[in-house]
């Protein structure tokens, strides 16, 4: 156990320098990106905001069913198959009836992989809808994978819109990730007041232009809607949509030079410009409403036909609110409303204090352990301490190499590693003491001390390592940071004990082999 070849010593040396280099890389600035890596600080250390958003998929499912109904109507009409009483049933299903003679035919159509009625998803080996029938009454329900597919596609759309909105605000290195099939995780480092982003993400931003109904009572084809700023009492709005946000090419905040009011100017695509032109030509003198997420922003009277496909929205905006509205319009509407279901925001002041406290605790804990080891083992304490210092370099070096994220619990994990790392050396030293008691040749005593303590050391470290791995897979956020430092710490501990400390021990006893070595 105690013999080291020159090659091995050399390898250990190179490895140590390698990790030492990466540890120091945290404190330097080099141009080369490969060699200048840094540990990422978690949001709890650098300050920032963590938001978990959940898409409310119910409207999407309803919309999908409505589309399906329209589709089925025309499809069966074209095929000359008579179906009736077609309607949404419960929340996830559609029900319809047919003549007895068509029952088998409809079944065949619904289970045909080529038919567009019930798309077949090759990757799930499943149709979009499950079909059930009681005699001539059919119920089609979104299958498990039909719902998953729907959710995934709305999540894909939503994450794109979220990314656009956040990019437009221009925060520092945002991190936007999917979580499951209806959640989006947003990490915004350095942002201590996520108010504006929360407001922007909380809006679906569904824009429509519709005519204001002349009537003051509920009528077929109208909705009663409120004004966003409450400046007027609610009015009835025609259901028919003149224009929607999809027709928008651009939107910008401006200060109107004549009225000195802040407005949002917009320009429409060709289809939009045509439709808007047509509507305004026939509608001079009428009122139309600009509606965002079921609230009226403004309802101007059409003064003249607008055919160039551009216009402006007034609505008593401040420059900030005009900027945000323009941003929402540019980035597009979310497929469904989203809710913020978890938020964690740490201000930069607390982050800095946490780093300070963590580093202080590390220095004190480290010093106490080092002092204790020297007190307990003298020269061998020194050896264990040297291994401990190398261990820290290895640990920080590896975290840097993989650009891991360091959190406050992560720092706690490093400190805990310092406390537990000496255990392996203690096990070895105590075993050597025992071996020396009945073995006269101290070289053999040292050697068997190392050999006989090995299983205990492995067992002891594997148990902690198991705990760290489970934490890594099941823990969240900062806790993950703890599991990383704890787990990596165990590996570096074993390395530093079996290579650094053992090498130093071997050098020491070979040099002093003729003297009595006390441990």
């Amino acid at each position: 156990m105690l013999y080291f070849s020159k090659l091995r010593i050399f390898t250990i040396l190179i490895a140590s320098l390698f990790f030492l280099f990466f540890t120091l890389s945290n404190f330097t600035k080099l141009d080369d990106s490969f060699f200048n890596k840094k540990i990422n600080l978690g949001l709890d250390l650098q300050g920032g905001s963590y938001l978990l958003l959940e898409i409310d998929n119910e409207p999407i499912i309803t919309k999908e069913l409505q589309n399906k109904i329209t589709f089925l109507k025309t499809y069966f009409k074209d095929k000359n198959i008579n179906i009736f009483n077609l309607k949404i049933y419960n929340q996830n299903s559609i029900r319809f009836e047919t003549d007895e003679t068509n029952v088998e035919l409809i079944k065949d159509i619904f289970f045909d992989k080529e038919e567009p009625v019930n798309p077949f998803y090759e990757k799930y080996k499943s149709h979009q809808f499950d079909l059930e029938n009681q005699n001539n009454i059919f119920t089609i329900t979104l299958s498990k994978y039909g719902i998953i597919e729907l959710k995934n596609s709305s999540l894909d759309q939503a994450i794109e819109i979220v990314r656009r909105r956040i990019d437009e605000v221009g925060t520092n290195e945002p991190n936007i990730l999917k979580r499951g099939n209806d959640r989006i995780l947003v990490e915004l480092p350095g942002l201590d007041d996520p108010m504006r982003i929360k407001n922007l993400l909380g809006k679906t931003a569904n824009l429509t232009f519709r005519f204001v109904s002349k009537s003051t009572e509920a009528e077929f084809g109208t909705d009663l809607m409120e004004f966003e700023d409450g400046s007027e009492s609610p009015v009835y709005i025609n259901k028919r949509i003149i224009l929607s946000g999809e027709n928008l090419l651009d939107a910008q905040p401006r200060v109107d030079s004549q009225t000195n009011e802040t407005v949002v100017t917009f320009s429409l695509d060709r289809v939009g410009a045509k439709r808007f032109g047509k509507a305004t030509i026939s509608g001079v003198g009428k009122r139309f409403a600009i509606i965002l997420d079921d609230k009226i922003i403004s309802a101007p009277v059409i003064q003249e036909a607008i055919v160039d496909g551009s216009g402006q929205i007034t609505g008593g905006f401040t420059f900030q609110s005009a900027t945000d509205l323009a941003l929402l319009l540019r980035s597009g509407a979310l497929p469904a409303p989203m809710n913020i279901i978890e938020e964690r925001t740490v201000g930069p002041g607390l982050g800095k204090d946490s780093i300070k406290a963590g580093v202080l605790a590390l220095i004190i804990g480290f010093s106490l352990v080092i002092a204790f080891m020297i007190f307990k083992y003298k020269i061998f304490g020194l050896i264990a301490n040297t291994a401990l210092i190398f261990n820290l370099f290895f640990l920080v070096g590896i975290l840097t190499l993989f650009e891991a994220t360091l959190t406050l619990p992560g720092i706690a994990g490093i400190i805990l590693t310092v406390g537990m790392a000496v255990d392996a050396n203690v096990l070895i030293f105590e075993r050597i003491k025992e071996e020396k008691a009945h073995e006269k040749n101290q070289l053999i005593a040292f050697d068997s001390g190392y050999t006989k303590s090995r299983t205990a050391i492995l067992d002891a470290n594997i148990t902690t390592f198991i705990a760290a791995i489970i934490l890594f897979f099941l823990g969240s956020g900062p806790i993950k940071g703890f599991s990383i430092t704890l787990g990596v710490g165990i590996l570096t501990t074993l390395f530093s004990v079996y290579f650094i400390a053992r090498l130093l021990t071997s050098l020491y006893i070979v040099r002093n082999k003729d003297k009595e070595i006390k441990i």
Partner: protein
Amino acid sequence: MKNIQFNKYYKLFTLISSGLAIISILLLIFKGLNFGIDFKGGTLIELRAIDKQINISSLRSSFSKMNLGDVAIKNFGEDYDFLIKFEKKGPEKDLIQNIKKDLNASIGSGYEIRRVENVGPKVSAELLKGGLIAIAVSLGAMLFYIWIRFEWQFSIGAILALFHDVLITMGIFSLIGLEVNLSIVAAILTIVGYSMNDTVVIFDRVRENLKKHIDLKIFDLTNLSINETLSRTIITSVTTLLALLSIFLFGGEILKGFSFAMILGVILGTYSSIFIANPILVNLKVNYKTIVKEEN
């Protein structure tokens, strides 16, 4: 090597530990745990007063007017730091902004909001479930590990020692009413690892001694093994505790609960390795044949 008659106290400490375990179970059933917002849902605000006029009673009176339900306010480390917690049902997008507005009106703007956490009911339920699963899986994994490394008698000893440590730590948390949050789950898992580690080292020695001293009764053999590994047990506990104490004292308020749980766990883990795990080997009449049978 020291020679302390640990085995004379096996019965006594088994009794004490059983008592503590039962009390802990009763506490957990009847008093329960003080779950933080991670597991209960709600909002937490850490606020630092810059204006010296702001104190806990002025904060209480201004928060009580905000219609937030049950608001708990306490000092957090320093005199000028406060932790405000409440369970606001239902999402409210402008919650923090409204609170700021109300605070500015009642106590002025001489404060800084240092941290905001808001956990919805769905997320908190998931986090609680995740935490319980993590603890269960870790206990299961330890059981599996020790089952492949040792004989079943040893597994029972080690697992009972683990349960003992986790149970009593939680019992103490319930008794003092300390907050249980995500970091406490991390602490429990680490305690599980540490307690196991400590037990395994002694068990390794027991197994070695079973082969070496065939004629020695398990009652004395466990005592010999404990004594042989005693200095290691103590030194490792001391260095680990030194590290944990420095986290507890200097690592800031956020890590207090975590390091406290760990300190309890390390002390209990060290104790249980000696006084829970070993008496079980004695009770299960482990002898030379137990391990030879396995190896043939």
